[in-house]
């Protein structure tokens, strides 16, 4: 499960967090405390976060600092959430976004 996590880093230290359950496209996954939604998905091996509304091309984790809008997903029904900077919370319902987003 944690094979995609950065465990050793020359500057940063990562403490072992507690488990945070959430769902992605209907699948039950587990992240760690301190994760963003994107880091939890990345650790779980998820690489495709959605598809471009016009071209249908796969969109993934890119800038990781909330700038590029490549990682927009639907979180708890709200579209266009930048999951790279959104902290993961227990019970979050995360879904791939393949359109421009529909406002709830």
């Amino acid at each position, binding site marked *: 499960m944690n094979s995609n996590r950065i465990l050793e880093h020359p500057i940063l230290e990562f403490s072992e967090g507690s488990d945070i359950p959430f769902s992605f496209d209907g699948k039950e996954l587990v992240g760690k405390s301190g994760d963003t939604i994107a880091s939890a998905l990345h650790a779980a091996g998820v690489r495709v976060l959605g598809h471009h509304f016009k071209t249908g091309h796969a969109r993934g984790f890119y800038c990781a600092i909330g700038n590029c809008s490549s990682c927009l997903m639907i979180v708890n029904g*709200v*579209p*266009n959430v930048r999951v790279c900077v959104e902290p993961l919370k227990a019970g979050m319902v995360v879904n791939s976004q393949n*359109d*421009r*987003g*529909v*406002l*709830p």
Partner: protein
Amino acid sequence: MQKTADVAIIGGGISGLSIAFNLAQAGVKNIVVLEKNFLGNGATGRCGAGIRMQWGTELNCLLSKYSCEFFEQAQELFHNNIDIEFEQGGYLIGAGTDEEVEQFKRNVKLQNDLGIESVFLSPEEAGEIMPHLDITKIKAATFCHRDGHLNPFRTTEAYSEAARSLGVSIYEYTEVQDILLDGDKLKGVRTDKGDISAPLVVNAAGGYSKLIADMAGVDLPVYSQRHQIMVTEPVEAMQDPMFMGFSLNIYIQQVPHGSFIMGRSDDSEPTDLRLTSSWQFLEKMSETCTTLMPRLGQLKVVRQWAGLYNMTADAQPIYDEAPELPGFYHAAGFSGHGFMLAPVTGHVMSRKIMGEKADIDVSCLNVSRFKDGGLLPTESSVV
């Protein structure tokens, strides 16, 4: 750069390009358009690009009807394949006061008499057209299904390409620095790339039209005021019409890309040609928008910008030859509606310049009306 022209048009915005296109179409040769920046860098590229026929004065109804009908057939009239994205989702105009309700009833009567198919609606009927509108905030509404909005950049390109294909020379990054006179006679223009002698000069400089008039030493009673717009992230289509309100102080549309674009007016906005953005606008605009359309409060704002309204005392344009300087023409003072009026601006100005009769009599839009106490009834249907 060429040294002579038959007509020199100052301003590469939608007005100047439309005048050039209409003149060229009518057979006038050797037309130059001079733009100090890139085409559409002024108010043209900064505007809300709404097109509506719902006005409160007969003349504005007729002018905008001409323009709307032009945009409906633009593709054939331009003879090019540039899609101007004219989305006719209608204009829904909300009344916020009892006075406005009465005014709107008169407006609809006037519009219907002129062949404009607008209707008067109850708040509930307005809510059917725009479900995310909080109908408790409006007292009534009017709607015209042929109104809409288009893409100002594509439209600028469509006009400029059509004008070029008819032989018009367009010089971008060419700044007019002076109007050349020979005694009290018009001789031409001085630009930072050289002089052009021209017997006819058109001032279509939008927010900067007064600076150009000053160069010519002629009086142009206009001033420019900053107006701001903001745009949100895109979402799936959820609003067909442009919504606007005058006392409600808003216009808001969802463009084909999915973004919402919105603006409002503020009397305290500066009149010194600045184009900066203010946080006050961001705050007030967000409040105005989310009060009327609470669902849109979930949208993130991605950008804001500013442009210049070129204002006159009666909020109606000036289409005239300067009385002090024969050959020097003004197409200015559009008061926030220059974009939607561009087709009719090109038509009436080209006819005036050629000494021919236009389809619409705009003689009352002369420059002398501000001196003679001949102000037109002020148009109340403005944001």
